């Protein structure tokens, strides 16, 4: 059941990313352009956060998820240099090319060398940090 739910969740997520425009690098870069701001993608966050906000109300009243023994929700609250520097680096990369991790998975469907290079480089980046940790 867990795997089926993961498949459904992943599929809905992928569908939503494409529908929203998050896999279109022109759209993303336009969203990050203060001079000619294309505000559309802000509504992706608005929609997603609104739904998830309600879901968390449900979560706090339940001791366990439906198909698992417990919730695995991050507990750290520390705001350190690693969080801020990491996020700044991510923001630079996101804006330079126009893709964040989810959309870059889907971009593999577009069969474009540059998109695949971005994806592989991102994996190398994951790997490097996880090695150092």
């Amino acid at each position, binding site marked *: 059941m*867990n795997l089926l*739910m*993961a*498949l459904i*969740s*992943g599929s*809905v*997520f*992928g*569908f*939503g*990313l*494409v*529908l929203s425009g998050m896999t279109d*690098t*022109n*759209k993303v870069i336009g969203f*990050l*352009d*203060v001079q000619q701001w294309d*505000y559309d993608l802000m509504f992706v*966050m608005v*929609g*997603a*956060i609104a*739904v*998830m906000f309600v*879901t*968390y109300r449900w*979560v706090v009243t339940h001791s366990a*998820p*439906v198909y*698992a023994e417990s*919730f695995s*929700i991050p507990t750290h*609250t*520390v705001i350190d240099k690693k*969080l*801020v520097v990491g*996020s700044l*680096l*991510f*923001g*630079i*990369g996101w*804006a330079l*090319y126009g893709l*964040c991790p*989810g959309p870059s*998975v*889907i971009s593999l*469907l577009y069969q474009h060398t*540059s*998109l695949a*290079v*971005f994806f592989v480089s*991102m*994996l190398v*980046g*994951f790997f490097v940090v996880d090695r150092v940790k």
Partner: protein
Amino acid sequence: MSSTLNALLGGVLIGVSASILLVFNGRIAGISGILASSLTKEITQNLWKIVFVMGLLVGGYLAHYVLDVPIPTPTHDGVWLAVVAGLLVGVGTRMASGCTSGHGVCGISRLSVRSLVATLSFMFAGFVTVYVMGALS
């Protein structure tokens, strides 16, 4: 449909997806974390992560096919820019333990200050980067 409405509906679907994963499996839909550990950690324990990533591809394909969404052309063709940007996204999201989905959606909606700081940081860096790139070109 207008692109603004598409963005809102897409966002709602992303919220529904993250809700399914949380309510049924108790897991957070943070893509950078899911991707990174589906590649490096032991397979049996993390099979769901691989399945989730497969789902992303299936859903993405369906959206293009069913809704006839045109295949976007990447803004930048260059391989070196893709390498640099990809490395920055990979390193940055792992250092910060989250990206647009984990911090931006799942974190902010549970009112995590840590995730809010992360999101404001990557948005700020994104705005500055596009501005600087525009000024340079």
